[in-house]
């Protein structure tokens, strides 16, 4: 039997062959273990190459200036310098608003002892659509509704501490500038009634939490990819006895945001469907430890999965998903 040459397997995995060639190869693969092993080895080589080349990226946000501005530019270096300054300022401003929203929510929680944890919040929106689709003049967080009272208070305090400038946390600066425009998170505010209704788990509230708080809430179920700074964590409570659904946003080299989503199968799939039709891709879902919940009919098992999403090739996301650890 003639085995499939290595370069053909590369071309097959690169989707560079015609349909008839693919059928021929798949037919052979179905009956040849050696070639299947060869294909798997080459797939691993491809993944690794992608991951290695992924490291060779400028360590800054790559944001294209508006095309119209580009056409008018005069001096290249002077234009770039002005453009980068604008990107920086936009990031700082967006971060100020995002920090205020996040801090406002935290303060409201901390200051109000009667506050019900499952009451409606809009804090998740702080991480929602700061838009990378970077046409400039971006009003990056225009669509973020700011919680009225606490936000104003905190902006004032922040300004008092730092002069006229609101100084955001560095992680939020990144998050607010580069999180995908097509957010996974529903933008509508949840109601406390829906949050308490165990039959509508998809309507439970999303909360922006600190890493420490996320560790407490998610226990061992917090997904994390080594070597990339965490720019945001979102948590949605699960049904009683189940771990929450968690989204951990981390910054990949070059500024792209990678989101690791860990939760019950149905929930994660539902989130992934939200991004269909966008340029955000997802890794193959991988199994994570299930939840075991005592119920009237005995112990019930809920399967859970992890998927990594971002504006990267699926191969790269698969490689990242394999390297993700569950904390």
């Amino acid at each position, binding site marked *: 039997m003639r085995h499939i040459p290595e*370069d053909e397997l590369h071309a097959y995995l690169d989707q560079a062959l015609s349909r008839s060639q693919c059928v021929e190869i798949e037919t052979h693969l179905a009956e040849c273990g050696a070639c299947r092993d060869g294909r798997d080895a080459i797939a691993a080589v491809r993944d690794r190459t*992608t991951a290695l080349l992924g490291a060779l990226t400028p*360590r800054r946000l790559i944001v294209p200036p508006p095309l119209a501005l580009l*056409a008018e530019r005069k001096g290249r270096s002077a234009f*770039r310098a002005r453009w980068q300054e604008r990107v920086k300022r936009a990031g700082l401003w967006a971060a100020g608003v995002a920090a205020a929203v996040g801090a406002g929510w935290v303060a409201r929680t901390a200051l109000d002892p009667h506050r019900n944890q499952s009451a409606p919040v809009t804090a998740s929106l702080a991480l929602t659509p700061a838009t990378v689709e970077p046409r400039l003049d971006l009003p990056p967080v225009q669509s973020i509704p700011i919680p009225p009272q606490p936000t104003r208070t905190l902006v004032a305090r922040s300004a008092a501490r730092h002069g006229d400038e609101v100084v955001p946390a560095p992680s939020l600066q990144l998050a607010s500038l580069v999180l995908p425009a097509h957010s996974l998170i529903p933008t509508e505010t949840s109601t406390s009634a829906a949050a308490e209704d165990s039959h509508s788990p998809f309507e439970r509230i999303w909360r922006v939490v600190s890493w420490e708080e996320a560790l407490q809430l998610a226990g061992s179920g917090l997904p994390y990819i080594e070597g990339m*700074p965490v720019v945001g964590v979102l948590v949605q409570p699960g049904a009683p006895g189940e771990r929450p659904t968690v989204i951990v946003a981390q910054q990949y080299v070059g500024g792209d945001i990678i989101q690791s989503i860990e939760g019950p199968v149905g929930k994660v799939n539902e989130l992934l469907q939200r991004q269909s039709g966008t340029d955000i891709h997802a890794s193959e879902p991988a199994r994570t430890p299930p939840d075991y919940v005592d119920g009237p009919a005995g112990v019930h098992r809920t399967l859970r999965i992890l998927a990594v999403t971002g504006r990267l090739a699926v191969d790269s996301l698969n490689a990242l998903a394999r390297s993700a650890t569950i904390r």
Partner: protein
Amino acid sequence: MIGKVGQSRATKRVRMDDLERLYNTHYAAVVRFLYRKIWDADRAEDLAQEVFIRAMAHRPEKPRAWIFAVAANLARDEARAAIRRKKHLTLLKDDPVPLSTPEPSAEDSVEHDERLAQVHGALATLTERDREVLLLWDSGLSYPEIAAQTGLAVGAVGTTLARARKRLIEAYDRMEYQGHAAHS
């Protein structure tokens, strides 16, 4: 006459829209492609913008392949100019990798720099053609587009890629091993 003018304007607008879409989706890829050739983030952005300015003037029929071909030419010119100025190209193994912005954690930064230098060094061990094909593939170009740009036959792209991938990983593993040996 008026109709013709209107028609040509309409056609022009559509092509500009296509170009703008391509610009928004491929700008970062072009910057990365250039950065991997000239190792200077500022110049990579300058040149990427230059590429798209030229694309707006030329309105090429196959814009995606065209912008990478122009980017490769600009990177080549840049390398020649750098040699003329007697600057060391960072493609040489021993040169430090220029980094444009500091990163938050010193430990992360050191680890990142080491990895970057190793991948960088591994890439530099490839032949120019292997490196070009690998970078074009990683930028999202199809086999026919890579073939058109490099002068290879379409059938040879897979062979070249197979060799380039294998050599990149071998060279990287070798450097990583040497790095560990040097630390211990």
